[in-house]
């Protein structure tokens, strides 16, 4: 015999209000997850920060205009002509220039950090999208069909996993043309980074998806679909993959910070965003020469990268906990 549950237990299980007598509403998976997520303060804060970043990226020019700052104009008068350091303590921080100034040319750091959110997010989000789409397609085909198909696709996956992406990107970076397909230098650089990062990073996700699909394909609903005459394509993309929504969402939110760091690496090494546009990695690269005499110049973009990556990581963790609390234990 089943043990009768108390009203409170029943309420907690389906997320209904605990006041006795109130109508119990059915809650969807998403609603349940959202309620769980709401309780995780850290994940909420991280999510809010990410939202803020996206808004900053979209409205960067508006924000800079409102502050009266420009990321590319020189303020030679605010820099000491002999030592080339910003005049004033803490790297030239003041009300007019809240993050201080760049040495040598006096460009405002607040405007440059704000502007730099765009390339970081664009590359990270777009490259992640490419990466996930490729990973899902290849991983699920390999997992579902098995046999020769799986064998070949898995070997291809192994090759791409072993590829030294950083070296390849540096090599490509030095031959990127200044203009192509109607895009200026900036557009071409971003497009190249997105395409190359996406094409060479899908292997990890493909492996994960393949494993999940393998475990799902023996389930009854798949057999049922097959018996009803559904073709493999429909089974994979309409039956199996939607069940993988949670892990896919989590992998996506964890791939984004990795790509942010990758974009920063590339700009640091000089193959990312072209002159004179700002990017956090490029600021870090310039700051290395000055860290002994103007540490602010290194701290500001460093903090920006750190906080962004941290936010995405914590958000991803929170998302995973909310969607499937038993995973990861």
């Amino acid at each position, binding site marked *: 015999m089943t043990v009768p549950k108390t009203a409170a237990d029943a309420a907690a299980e389906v997320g209904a209000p605990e006041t006795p007598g109130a109508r119990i509403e059915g809650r969807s998976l998403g609603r349940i997850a959202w309620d769980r997520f709401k309780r995780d303060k850290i994940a909420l804060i991280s999510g809010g920060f990410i939202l803020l970043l996206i808004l900053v990226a979209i409205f960067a020019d508006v924000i800079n205009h409102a502050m009266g700052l420009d990321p590319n104009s*020189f303020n030679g008068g605010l820099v000491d002509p002999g030592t080339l350091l910003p005049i004033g303590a803490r790297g030239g921080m003041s009300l007019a220039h809240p993050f201080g100034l760049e040495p040598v040319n006096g460009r405002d750091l607040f405007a440059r950090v704000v502007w730099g959110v765009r390339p970081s997010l664009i590359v990270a989000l777009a490259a992640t999208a490419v990466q996930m789409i490729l990973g899902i397609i290849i991983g699920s085909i390999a997992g579902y069909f098995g046999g020769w198909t799986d064998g070949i696709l898995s070997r291809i996956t192994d090759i791409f996993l072993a590829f030294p992406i950083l070296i390849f990107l540096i090599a490509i970076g030095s031959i990127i043309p200044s203009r192509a397909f109607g895009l200026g230098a900036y557009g071409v650089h971003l497009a190249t980074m997105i395409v190359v990062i996406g094409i060479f990073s899908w292997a990890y996700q493909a492996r994960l998806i393949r494993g999940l699909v393998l475990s799902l394909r023996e389930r009854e609903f798949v057999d049922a679909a097959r018996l009803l005459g559904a073709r493999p394509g429909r089974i994979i993309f309409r039956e199996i993959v939607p069940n993988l929504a949670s892990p896919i969402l989590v992998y996506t939110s964890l791939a984004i910070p990795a790509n942010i760091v990758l974009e920063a690496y590339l700009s640091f090494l000089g193959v990312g965003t072209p002159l004179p546009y700002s990017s956090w990695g490029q600021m870090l690269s310039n700051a290395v020469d000055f860290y002994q005499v103007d540490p602010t110049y290194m701290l500001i973009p460093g903090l920006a990268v750190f906080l962004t990556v941290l936010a995405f990581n914590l958000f991803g963790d929170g998302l995973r906990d909310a969607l499937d609390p038993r995973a990861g234990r």
Partner: protein
Amino acid sequence: MQRTTKIAATVAAAALVVSVASACSSSKGSSGGNTGTAVNPADTIKFNYGTTGVVNPSTKKGGTLVLGGTQDLDSVDPVNQYYAYSWDFSRYYARTLMTYKVGAPGAQSTTLVPGLASAAPTASADGLTWTVKIRSGLKFSNGEDITSKDVKYAIERSYAVDTVNPAGPEYFANILTDTSYPGPYKDKAADHLGLKGVDTPDDTTLVFHLSAKYGDFPYVLTMPQTAPVPIDVDSNPSTGGLNYTGTKVVSSGPYMISQYTAGKNMTLVRNPNWSAASDPTDPALPNTITVKTDWDPNQLDAALLAGTVDAEYDGGGLQTADVAKALDNPNQKKYTDNPAANATRYVTIDQDVAPFNNIDCRKAVAYALNKVDLISARGGSVAGAKEANTMLPPGVPGHTDANPYPTGPDNKGDIAKAKEELQKCGQPNGFSTGIITVNAGKGPGFATALQAALARVGITTQITQVEGSKYYSQNLQRPDVMKSKGLGLGAAGWGPDWPTGFGFFSQITDGRLLSATSSGSNYGRLNDPKVNSLLDQMKASTSSAQTAQLAGQLDTQVMSDAVYIPYGYDTLLIARGKNVTNYYLTNAYNGEVDLAALGTSVGSS
């Protein structure tokens, strides 16, 4: 010659630099001038003393001199050297016919004195024949006698542009008769001395036959290409030709190369066959000289300020962060000097790239420059450059203080005048063009500063960055490449091959040196008949006063063509070690340290 800059690291090694500014003897504040010989050495340890006086004078011989640099010599074989610091360095092992006086700081540092020659060369009445006698009784480091034939042979090697001299100067091929001489390796004469432009009537005499008058010829004789090379050693395929490098180089100077690893280090020891009696110019104080050529720039700065390296030989100067630290710390500042490098930094405009064929569009660029920002990009007002408004640097006779394109009272650009010029050239709303720069060092900073300055008048620019090794040979010197990529503007710097107006202008402004496929060093492709005629007059002039006056006129004419727009005269902030003696900067080698004078105060003989 090309202005070399220290190669700044593009990938940051996380090197922790601990700069030890050890406070040794605090300099007493006595008003030490360089009055005669009775100067207390301790009084010379002051900021910038080395530009006008000898720092830490001493006659002490012996010890090991430790030199450091971030780049190797461009060539150990003297025939292929074109960097100023290589010319300076090779005096240790390659004695040239004429040389610059050693031990004479400041204005005296460009005094020409005989080196291998026993006296200054004499010219015939028509100026087409020059005669030089070399000292007798001189020997190479391998014991062989040095004769005039070895000097002639060395000069012949400068003609071998396909083998041993791909990158060095070619003055002899342009000045002497017999322009078709193919070099000693293809020489038909059995004794390899087939060059008709030079005669050797006896073992100590050389007679040069010039195709036209050349007043600066004694300066040409200071080139390392006049250092003798033993014919039998170089004719032997295993020790000569392209193998004549490192320890195989036979020395005619006070030291010889005892060890050499390319790109890493070199050691020199005394040449046993050199005698001080036969060489009044070289003090040759240390017994051994060790050279490390692959220093990281920041670590080299720290080593210099700590005293573990005596001097920097490559003229690179302190890195930006170390400049800031040194200027703010008196204990470090007194070990630094701030010489003028006698070189000009300028924006070069390619006339073949529209709309720069129109002189008013070029003038618009000249008025729009923000010279303060450009100088900051070069390293600031102390360690980078002083503001420049004409091409000739202050250290070359003929320099004027004119300013044909004033950039406003604060030197940040005269926007109104620039827009006026744009109206005149038919581009009232500006136009679009390309900037080419090197992708490392000061290149990116220069390009962004130029871009920001020109954007204010509506000239929009795209920046193309290329590697240093490809910057000149595959871009700036190639008119077809510049035109096809739309690169109207570029960064350039130039120092004189020798300190006269002709030595400065001849390679960069002579339109007759241009070819369809190469601009040489005349990147803007200037071909002004008035300029060419002034160059010819300077070339023939034997009076330094007349040369100076002609140089001034040439400067004015070049500026009026608005193809080269100068913005800075290079300066350096360079550190010296604590133990080095007889340290001073010489204008003969673009403000770099006179290596031949150096000694050390520590170490036993």
